[in-house]
């Protein structure tokens, strides 16, 4: 019972952290369109982008996990404080307008929320003992027990003499170890397999919803008259986005092979690969759609953080890079927006930097030892 309460507290705290961090980022950017889910979504990517950089520095410096945990505690504390002071008014406004905003949705919002609840319940209940879960969760539990970062093989417990580029450069599993180091009594296996699974599924749904909003923009945002589409601003977009999420949910539960996004979402939601295909890719696609539709707010900044977080999640972050190039380069070519090439290159920096370091480590140009 105590563990379950701790797990619930960990989930609420982490969601609150993402909300606060996202609120800070949105405040800095001066974004007008604020919503709690969008702020948490932005915060999620920014957090894992920052975590990746800090964790890699600590890993290369052979510092203990506890030191990383205390550093992250300071970052989290600062984010929560700033987010609370800057975001409080926005949160209140969001809560006060909740009733009005709910009226902008149709019956499909109920279906969407039911799909979300069913998905969260499913991933909390689902368990297996796959080899990959052994690696992802084992990495976090090994780090916490030995108070090290990546210096022991998670699948055997044997010491590792050189960091392997394929695993050492993606810090996502250590987030669970950090949380458990700060929340005494919460087992890593519960944080990694149940708490993070639930958070990741919620983020996946928000990502798909954001993609839906981008795919079905409310044209009044662009100053057009759309009385025939909806009587109230925001209604058309929300209704279509709700329906879109429901269809994605249905298609995911009808994904019959072990390679499709659906199986990753429901059975491997705590793995970095799943986050690439179910969170980072819809988020990147939403940015690409909004670029094509010219309704984007800070598209390249958003893409930068998505890529930074994707590097943290998995080596498959390269897929997010290819998707972004595949979607944006034709648009730049057809519309002749050559000035966008530089910001696009900037947004791709995290994955490109990761790829460069990966290449250098794999070919022995950089030797990352686990000892001095």
């Amino acid at each position, binding site marked *: 019972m105590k563990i379950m309460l701790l797990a619930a507290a960990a989930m609420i705290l982490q969601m609150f952290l993402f909300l606060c961090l996202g609120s800070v980022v949105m405040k800095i950017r001066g974004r007008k369109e604020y919503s709690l889910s969008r702020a948490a979504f932005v915060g999620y990517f920014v957090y894992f982008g920052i975590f990746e950089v800090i964790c890699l520095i600590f890993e290369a410096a052979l510092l203990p996990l506890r030191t990383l945990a205390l550093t992250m505690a300071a970052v989290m504390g600062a984010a929560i404080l700033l987010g609370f002071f800057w975001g409080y008014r926005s949160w209140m406004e969001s809560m006060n307008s909740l009733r009005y905003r709910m009226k902008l949705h149709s019956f499909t919002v109920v279906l969407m929320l039911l799909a979300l609840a069913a998905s969260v319940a499913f991933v909390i209940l689902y368990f297996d003992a796959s080899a990959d879960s*052994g690696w992802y969760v*084992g990495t976090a*539990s090994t780090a916490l027990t030995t108070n090290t970062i990546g210096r022991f093989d998670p699948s055997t417990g044997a010491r590792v003499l050189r960091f392997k580029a394929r695993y050492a450069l993606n810090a996502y599993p250590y987030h669970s170890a950090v949380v458990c180091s700060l929340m005494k009594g919460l087992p890593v296996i519960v944080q990694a397999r149940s708490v993070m699974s639930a958070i990741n599924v919620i983020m996946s749904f928000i990502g798909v919803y954001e993609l839906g909003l981008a795919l079905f923009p409310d044209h009044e945002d662009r100053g057009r008259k759309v009385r025939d589409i909806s009587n109230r601003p925001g209604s058309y977009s929300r209704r279509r986005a709700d329906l879109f999420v429901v269809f994605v949910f249905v298609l*995911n539960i*009808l994904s019959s*092979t072990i390679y499709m996004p*659906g199986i990753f979402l429901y059975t491997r939601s705590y793995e970095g690969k799943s986050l690439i295909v179910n969170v980072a890719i819809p988020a990147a696609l939403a940015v690409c759609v909004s670029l094509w*539709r010219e309704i984007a707010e800070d598209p390249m900044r958003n893409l930068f953080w998505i890529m930074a977080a994707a590097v943290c999640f998995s080596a*498959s972050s390269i897929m997010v890079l290819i998707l972004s190039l595949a979607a944006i380069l034709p648009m730049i070519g057809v519309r002749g927006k050559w000035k966008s090439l530089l910001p696009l290159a900037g947004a791709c920096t995290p994955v490109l930097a990761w790829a460069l370091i990966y290449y250098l480590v794999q070919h022995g140009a950089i030797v990352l030892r686990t*000892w001095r």
Partner: protein
Amino acid sequence: MSGITIKEYGLTFVWAALREYLGRSWPILLIFAAGCVLGIVFAITGRKKENPLEIVDARDYVPGKYEDNPLPDSSSVTWMFIGIVIFCALTVMNPFLVRVLIPKFGMTTVYYRFFWIIPITFGAAYWLTRAAGMVKKRVLQAGLVILLCAGMAWLMPLNPGIPNVRIPTNVYKVDGAVPVLCDAVHEDFEKTQKYITASEKLAQITDTSSKKWLKAVQKQYPLCVFPYGIEFAVRQYDPTIRLLFNRNLRLFYEGNTSTGISYGSKNTRYIRRKLILDAMYGKDPAITQEAFREAMDKTGAQYLIVEEHLANGGFLVQSGCKQVGVVAGYTIFKYGL
């Protein structure tokens, strides 16, 4: 992707991989492709319409506002999907490039991840939403949504993870035997001289960034072999248990070649470990006690955990193992302690 290699399939590798990727969920690709084709048709025939599938939008088109865009905004999503497909067809799904580059990067077994780039699921959901959105009356729209979902459910099988869900027996979501087995191994190991010596040695080393410290840390944990069904859960629950088999070695032993790694008869590391498992389960009567003892000594294995009804107990005890006890239906043997 299991069973699909560039060596075997050559230029048809991408097609074979796509078929394996989709399996019986191919209607998702069909919806996506059909939507893209319809989108192009509507985009070409109705260039001035805001949303080609929603005629009502035509009245809201503002001429002159986006004249600098060669492509009308209404079809931008279609063009984006087409752009992604063409880009991928020329690069990461170009059979000629794939045949050369994918094996070089060692990505044959994980090639399916490139299909994530093409937004098949999101694209199909987009076109389904547009189709449902064509109906304005709410009741009719709800009926159409139900009809579409029912049609897809009839055409495609369920996600294989869904029928496998079961209520976990503990908060850790591991087999109930795992916690008790780990406790039993620790209880026994912590009484041994090896553990006491390792702990004392570790206490003397103050430099935690040294090689010595890493070695001393691992020495204070027992080295075990667990049954396949629970092996991958053990270190998730208790990382103070060391395992003799790493992920790839164990998967290969159990006949899973999805990692793309195989271990031949010259790989002594694998051969010794295989011998231990074969002896534990009595799979190979040709294994001698001397060969088993040599494998145990060279690998340093300390605990063997076997299902009680499958254990080759007589052979293990005669070869120098001691039975620690029977816990949760598993027999625990120790060696050299």
